[in-house]
């Protein structure tokens, strides 16, 4: 392995790109082109670094769990370190981030005319923060990145969004922040437990893993962490920020939001909630699973009746991310691997859907389904791409959506088939709402004169959508390339959780086996 | 009832009466005069407490200088009576609220103080049970310029600040 600090490099490169952009004088947009290329270059370089990570990653069982580890003290007073490292799960999500950011930049090449420089800066900062979220192994550092992600995204929605962007941006940031701050309290709480147990300060994730946290506290901590994460995911009933944020965000924002940011929540569940608080996780897993199957069905049903394409896709994300949480809640190798795979798949296909909807809305300045119809006559290539992505999204086997959903359902089935029976309805409903949208937008005659003579995909748009479609197919046909690297990591987490869950060793343990909530409430410790 | 008690009641009554008069009528000129009366009462109490220097200062500086300043301002502004509510732009709901609330709270406060004092140990002892180790002007001066030297110096800054402030604030408006 090279001596280069690749993880730091992947975080620093976008920041450097952003800094470079600060010094590009672009008062009146005269240098927009240069700005765009610089940003794209920086993000591509970052992508290259993430690919190097993948190439250099040793996925064998014997390899260390976390690789490319970097560690420097940051706040010695609290044992806070700048501590980075990736396992297979984080690696995959980093590659996803690295992949989607240039795509998003490219997707907004022509859609963004206002303040291009600042737009690019925010995009790059966002990328850096997201990468940081995935590779931080110090809980405090994680939180720093986690919270900072909100800021650039807030600006992206608020400044470059559509009509109700301000409402959406504020809702987005407040809603997600309301969840995160409780997690902050819980992080501090765990750190204190560590301090009282060992007498030293640390926010090292692995030291936290080793803590024996009393069950009573676990429930609270688990809730605090998990609420933060499932708001981000978002899980019913914490999802309503998402449709607004998606609808109002510019294309690039939606792509990143759906493609990467939602995964941060699921990643948090995998990395923190479950392994840190296994007993609580066992206790609450049925609740999470129930919420996720509700989300799956509910998201799909609500998506079905949306008049706005972006909103439809947004609700479809609610539905799909419900699968992810279901897989995590199952807490076995199948379920969790499926969940991680589904994260990647959803990132690709929903990112692509937002790109495509963005292309339509760039052309027509509306996203209402009723405004379209018969587009297949005027833009067959875009239609074809849309169809591929649609099918990926509905989970057609052979495309990326299927593998994840199947593994999730398999994992959940091994755990408690009842959830799968409900979740499977999502399979039906996803076809309903996606194909209905395709039908209304692309099929039929061109009824609206404004739709006549719309140009088909340009070269740039090919560059955006081509890789996404290709990846959707590759991931569906040869998913093992993605499953293999993450398998040891997933197995390790499952092991860790199961080892400390006496009640939940076997499938289908009844929820009543867990201790009751009343006895679990911490008493006296809260003033 | 000894003479000191009699004196205490007399001076106390004067102090209280003066204070009540300050807040009990509307003319600020009378208020200033009433507070001077009250100060005389306090001054008498200081004498009873064997603090003659304080008593003198109370009369000369407090009543003589500070209150005269008040009187001067009252005369300068020439607002003999409280004006009515023509300037009162607060919401009607709030207009008399603070007044009543203040009165009620004041009653509560005195109740609390008395109640608390009545339960504090060591209150029954006479104030002059112990012989004063030092109370002469010389003692005062010595302690003031040793133990309290730095505090004394700090007051100089306080007074400069107040002076500068008063000048800045009361100076005529700029012509600009």
């Amino acid at each position, binding site marked *: 392995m090279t001596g280069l600090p690749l993880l730091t490099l992947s975080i620093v490169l976008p920041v450097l790109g952003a800094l470079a952009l600060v010094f590009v004088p672009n008062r009146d947009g005269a240098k927009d082109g240069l700005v765009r290329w610089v940003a794209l270059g920086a993000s591509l370089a970052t992508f290259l670094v993430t690919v190097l990570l993948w190439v250099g990653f040793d996925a064998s069982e014997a390899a260390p769990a976390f690789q490319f580890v970097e560690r420097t003290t940051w706040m010695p007073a609290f044992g806070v370190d700048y501590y980075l490292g990736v396992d297979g799960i984080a690696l995959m999500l980093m590659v996803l981030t690295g992949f989607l950011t240039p795509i998003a930049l490219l997707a907004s090449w022509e859609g963004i005319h206002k303040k291009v420089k600042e737009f690019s800066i925010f995009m790059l900062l966002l990328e850096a923060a997201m990468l940081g979220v995935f590779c931080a192994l110090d809980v405090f550092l994680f939180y720093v990145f986690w919270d900072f992600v909100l800021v650039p995204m807030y600006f992206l929605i608020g400044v470059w969004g559509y009509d109700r962007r301000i409402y959406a941006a504020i809702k987005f940031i407040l809603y997600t922040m309301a969840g995160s701050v409780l997690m902050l309290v819980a992080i501090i709480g765990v750190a204190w437990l560590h301090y009282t147990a060992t007498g030293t300060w640390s926010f090292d994730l692995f030291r936290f893993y080793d803590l024996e946290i009393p069950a009573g506290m676990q429930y609270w901590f688990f809730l605090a962490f998990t609420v933060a994460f499932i708001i981000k995911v978002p899980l019913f009933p914490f999802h309503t920020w998402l449709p607004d944020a998606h609808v109002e965000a510019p294309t690039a924002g939606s792509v990143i939001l759906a493609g990467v940011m939602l995964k941060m929540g699921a990643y948090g569940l995998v990395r923190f909630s479950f392994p840190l608080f296994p007993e609580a996780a066992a206790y609450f897993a049925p609740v999470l699973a129930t919420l996720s199957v509700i989300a799956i069905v509910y998201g799909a049903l609500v998506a079905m009746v949306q008049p706005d394409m972006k909103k439809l896709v947004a609700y479809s994300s609610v539905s799909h991310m419900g699968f992810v949480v279901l897989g995590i809640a199952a807490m076995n190798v199948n379920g969790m691997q499926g969940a991680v795979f589904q994260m990647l798949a959803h990132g690709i296909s929903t990112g692509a859907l937002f790109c495509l909807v963005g292309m339509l809305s760039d052309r027509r300045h509306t996203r209402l389904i009723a405004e379209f119809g018969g587009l297949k006559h005027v833009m067959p290539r875009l239609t074809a791409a849309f169809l591929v992505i649609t099918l990926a999204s509905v989970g057609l086997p052979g495309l990326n959506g299927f593998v994840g959903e199947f593994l999730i359902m398999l994992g959940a089935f091994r755990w408690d088939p009842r959830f799968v029976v409900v979740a499977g309805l999502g399979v039906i409903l996803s076809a309903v709402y996606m194909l209905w949208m395709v039908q209304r937008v692309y099929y039929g005659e061109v009824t609206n004169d404004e739709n006549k003579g719309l140009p088909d995909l340009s070269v740039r748009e090919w560059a955006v959508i081509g890789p996404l479609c290709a990846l959707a197919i590759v991931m569906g046909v040869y998913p093992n390339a993605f499953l293999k690297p993450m398998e040891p990591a997933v197995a390790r987490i499952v092991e860790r959780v199961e080892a400390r869950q006496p009640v939940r060793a076997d499938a289908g343990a009844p929820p009543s086996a867990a201790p009751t909530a009343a006895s679990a409430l911490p008493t006296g410790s809260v003033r | 009832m000894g003479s000191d008690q009699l004196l205490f009641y007399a001076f106390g009554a004067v102090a209280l009466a003066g204070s009540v008069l300050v*807040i009990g009528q509307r003319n600020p000129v009378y*208020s200033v005069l009433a507070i001077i009366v009250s100060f005389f009462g306090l001054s008498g109490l200081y004498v009873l407490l064997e603090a003659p220097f304080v008593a003198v200062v109370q009369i000369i500086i407090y009543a003589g200088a500070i209150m005269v300043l008040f009187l001067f301002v009252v005369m300068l502004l020439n607002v003999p009576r*409280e004006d009515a509510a023509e300037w009162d732009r607060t919401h009607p709901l709030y207009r008399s609220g603070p007044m009543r609330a203040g009165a009620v709270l004041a009653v509560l406060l005195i109740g609390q103080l008395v109640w608390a004092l009545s339960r504090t140990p060591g209150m029954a002892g006479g104030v002059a049970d112990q*012989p*004063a180790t030092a109370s002469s002007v010389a003692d005062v001066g010595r302690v003031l310029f040793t133990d309290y030297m730095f505090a004394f110096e700090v007051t100089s800054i306080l007074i400069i600040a107040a002076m500068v*402030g008063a000048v800045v604030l009361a100076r005529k408006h700029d012509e600009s």
Partner: protein
Amino acid sequence: MIPLSYYLVLSGLLFTIGTAGVFLRKNLITMLLSVEIMLNAVNLAFVAFGRTFGTVDGQILTFFVMTVAAAEAAVGLALVIGLFRHRESLNPDAFTSLRW
């Protein structure tokens, strides 16, 4: 012999009258006077306590309080003059342009 509590009760009464004055009067100058009464009530307490301990500390504290009172009076009166210049009124409720 006069118990300490007598002085303290008297001090308390004066203090309370001072606080009440802040609320009862619609005249800035009287309100300032009320604050002076409060400070004097404290002074009485200081001297009484000082006498109980038999030291001069109480008296000295009183001097400092008087100094502060004087400084406050100076600044307060200057402000009153400034306010009066702006609005020709000494009613505290006339000065509510800053609110909410």
